[in-house]
């Protein structure tokens, strides 16, 4: 890949059946990264996971009052930096107040954001107009 950007945008209905599709895009991207010195298979899994978890959150927190609601996933790669933006139309949540999982007393849910943060460099969640955006940044060196 040269320093031109690769951009992928996918819009899906808020249904979990499409998580496989979103995750596999992440996996496939790992193959397109140039000059990656790490374990490419591991990168593929991590991108699959990050996209899956982010899309799951958006679907879960989406606008349940609108059966035609959608989630938009925008992926941007340039100069070995990956930025993923996931847009939802739900009520939003307070990213800063999401607790870390308690590893001594593990619970069955609430680990999605932990994985996203553990495997990437920066995560923000902001309101933009009529939607919320989870923005995830990861260097792919």
């Amino acid at each position, binding site marked *: 890949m040269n320093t031109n950007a690769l951009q992928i945008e996918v819009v899906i209905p808020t249904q979990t059946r499409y998580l496989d599709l979103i*995750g596999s895009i992440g996996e496939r991207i790992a193959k397109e990264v140039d000059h990656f010195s790490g374990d490419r298979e591991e990168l593929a899994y991590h991108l699959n996971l990050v996209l*899956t978890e982010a899309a799951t959150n958006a679907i*879960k927190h989406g606008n349940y009052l609108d059966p035609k609601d959608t989630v938009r996933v925008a992926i941007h790669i340039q100069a070995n930096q990956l930025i993923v933006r996931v847009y939802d139309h739900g009520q939003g949540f307070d990213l800063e107040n999401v607790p870390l999982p308690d*590893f001594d007393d*593990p619970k069955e*849910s609430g680990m*999605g954001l*932990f994985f996203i943060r553990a495997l990437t460099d920066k995560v923000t969640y902001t309101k933009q107009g009529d939607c919320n955006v989870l923005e995830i940044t990861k260097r792919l060196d």
Partner: protein
Amino acid sequence: MNLNQEIINGYSVIFINEERIDAHNSGELKDYLLQRIEQGDVNIVVQLEQVKFIDSSGLGALLSGFKHAATKSGKLVLACCNPRVLSMFELTRLNRVFEVYKDVSELFDNES
């Protein structure tokens, strides 16, 4: 979710015939495990040989089964995790919660 179950050496061995466990099918897995435990199959091996991908909801379903089995004085253990799947348990330290066996026969060798 495509799975099948066999009773082997007193254990209910559940073969997950899916490459991917995520929020689309993890609810079904959680319900299935709960059902089996309520029906008296409290010693369970979840065989994950075919599973190439699991997300946090998949871990949650397995953890739910683990906890339910424990409340009935049984246990739920895992077998045949590929390295990527295993790393998910390591990242969350769930590898200290679950017993993980290379394969089903390792569990039975251990027990005898």
